[in-house]
């Protein structure tokens, strides 16, 4: 494996973690929106706030991680994608601004009308942001971004039915992950009514996500034959595994094995992300730019790799402490 491929793999790991953790945060916002009125939805919103409060900023850094690795190790990829797709990037940025700030604001205010405004903005932007990030993924996966700065069409590259569908899929997957994660959190909090609510949502979102992705594959067949070929050949084992994991998750939810359901739900998402990577490999942009061509000079890759290894020594135990601290014995906190 070349160093360029190693760096691409690390970047893709960042994408994966962002989807699994950041995605679940977005999904939590999705359920916040549909939690009902202030009185009815209070317990659900409390659980959501309690679950993502300590970790959402950390989860969010994965996105930054992906971007900085991309512009350091694959600068032409970053330049091509961000320039052509500047509109969905900007719209996602607005979503990110609205989401982070209103979540923080809602935490400190107490009046119902204030919490309502901030809460609604938070929840709405939790849907908008993954949607636009999804259209970006769609545009790249479908080969709509040509190589070069500002070489693509700034509208049609991403505003097309298949890209919109991938945006919707992103929102659905976020909602699915969040519901599965929150079911386990709800059980730890001991509120059985919440457990039932989130379990049903997880089942529903899982089914919808399955349908959307199946439909997606059929849709892609005409829109992106190259990608479809990759998904049905080199990526096939992962696509199949994703389907199996998704189905197993539904079963686990049904028999109320929520922690195991978390793992299999995450696995289903991981398989989609890596299935896409496998389908596209070794290309990073359409069929024009390979990992090797996009990569920076070896000295840069080497320096970045060494820095990441050193950073990981600090990062991994810190992350472990964060998640362990807030995943155990938090029943007395509220």
């Amino acid at each position, binding site marked *: 494996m070349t160093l360029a491929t190693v760096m691409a793999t690390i970047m893709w790991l960042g994408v994966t973690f962002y989807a699994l953790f950041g995605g679940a945060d977005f999904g939590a916002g999705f359920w916040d929106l549909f939690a009902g009125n202030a009185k009815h939805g209070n317990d659900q919103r409390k659980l959501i706030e309690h679950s993502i*409060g*300590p*970790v959402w*900023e*950390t989860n*969010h*850094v994965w*996105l*930054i*991680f992906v*971007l*900085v*690795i991309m*512009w*350091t*190790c694959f*600068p032409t990829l*970053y*330049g*091509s*994608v*961000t*320039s*052509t797709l*500047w*509109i969905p*990037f*900007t719209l*996602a*940025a*607005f979503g*990110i*601004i609205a*989401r*982070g*700030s209103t979540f*923080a*604001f809602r*935490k*400190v*205010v107490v009046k119902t009308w204030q919490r309502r405004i901030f809460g609604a903005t938070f929840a709405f932007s939790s849907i908008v942001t993954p949607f636009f990030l999804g259209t970006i993924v769609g545009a790249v996966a479908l080969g709509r971004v040509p190589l070069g*700065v*500002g070489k693509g069409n*700034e509208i049609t590259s991403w505003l097309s039915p298949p890209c919109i569908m991938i945006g919707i899929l992103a929102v659905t997957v976020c909602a699915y992950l969040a519901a599965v994660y929150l079911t386990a959190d709800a059980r730890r909090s001991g509120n059985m009514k919440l457990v039932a609510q989130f379990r049903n949502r997880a089942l529903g979102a899982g089914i919808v996500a399955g349908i959307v992705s199946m439909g997606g594959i059929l849709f892609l067949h005409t829109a992106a034959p190259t990608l479809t070929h990759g998904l049905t050949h080199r990526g096939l084992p992962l696509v199949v595994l994703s389907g199996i994991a998704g189905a197993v998750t539904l079963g686990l939810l049904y028999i109320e094995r929520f922690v195991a359901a978390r793992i299999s739900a995450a696995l289903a998402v991981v398989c989609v992300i890596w299935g896409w990577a496998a389908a596209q490999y070794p290309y990073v942009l359409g069929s024009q730019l390979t990992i090797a061509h996009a990569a*920076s*000079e070896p*000295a*840069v890759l080497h*320096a*970045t790799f060494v*820095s990441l290894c050193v*950073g990981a020594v*600090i*990062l991994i135990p*810190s*992350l472990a*402490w*964060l998640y362990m*601290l*807030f995943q155990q014995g938090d029943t007395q906190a509220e």
Partner: protein
Amino acid sequence: MNYTSFATALANPVAARSQMGFSLGCHIIIACFGVGFPTLVLFAEWRAHKTGDPVYLVLAKRWAKILGLLFAIGAVSGTVVSFEMGSLWAGLMSHYGQVIGLPFAMEGFAFFIEAIFLGIYLYGWDKLSPKVHMLAGLPIAISGIAGTFFVVSANAWMNAPRGFSVIHGRIVGIDPWAAMFNPATGPEAAHMLLAAYMVTGFGIAGFYAVAMLRGNRDRYTRLGLLIPLTLAVIITPIQIGVGDWAAESVGVLQPTKLAAIEGLSNTTKGAPEQLFGYYSDGQLHDAVKIPYGLSLLAKHNVNATIQGLNAVPANDRPSNPLVTVAHLSFDAMVSIGFFFFAIGLWLAWSWKRRKEIPKTKLFLAAVSVSGLAAVVAMECGWITTEVGRQPWIVYNVMRVDAAANPEHGIQYGFYALVLAYVVLATVLVLVLRYLAGLPLELEAAKKYMKRHQA
């Protein structure tokens, strides 16, 4: 060239520059608090346990709440900047991302550590012992410092580009370490780091000075003024020294920028220091002149020769109005610096005589103003360095025009962002005011301390 492509070529660099300036100008204020505030919060918490005085804990808890709020805003406004590096400056990043990406990758890690430990710190009051809780706060303060260094090193590289060669338009021989540790990194990073502490210190002190002016003189308010103000005034003289170092380094590395800062048109031996005034028709008007001042300050030698603006062709240096902007921004920053120095002397004198904050309203008014003045000074510093480098985005290597994203409609993103940030700033101020109006949680603090004393 048809009309549309001409309009795009003209508009995009301007729109991109406006948006970047605006969003970074906003982000940097919040980022300063992210860097400087954790130190103050931890100091207050440590004093609480050291002295057993619950008022310190009230301060620490309230400050931690505000820190959490500001950090969230900083996290999102920082993410916006990381998008803009491409959506606005794809030309720069697709060429030079590989040269200057390394410190950004490191900043990614610093930001991770900050976010992780902030989560632990803010939500861990009841889960951790006071000692572990304070220790969990330390990485926030440290990674803030590290993050400042990494990000500023990237900006320093734009001023003193190193670590690559351009052969036939291709960038080769990249040494990311040399790019990161370019000669401008030291003075610029030190200058910005101290500025972050000053913005935090004067900013918080200014807030409590307003409260004191309104007649609120309890211990909570006095400590709220004294702790950050002490930090800020101790740093001020150090910052003046570092500022001198930074200006000297600009003279060596970017002589055109120094000439713009000083409004010096012709290369001069024994150049005078020229304060204020405006630059037009190729010279500085209405300035106050101090003979030999510039040579003395920039080169520490009264007879030193200082390069003037005319030494480079007109289209390789800032235009006349931009020279005025860089010149006045610099003068404003330095003037505010000495205003801070005076505040520090006043406080030191009063403390030596009476162990008290000066009682006069004039002092409190000065401290109140200092909060805003610190932000103005810091922004002026950035305006000086960014405007003074024009028309280059990477000094003598790449022009702003070549760096901008050429796609259509960039300016609309800028308008929308201004609108969004105006709304955000308004709401932030309202929420901060609301937080400030909450009753002090002295009883809760006493309980917490009692619980952890046993």
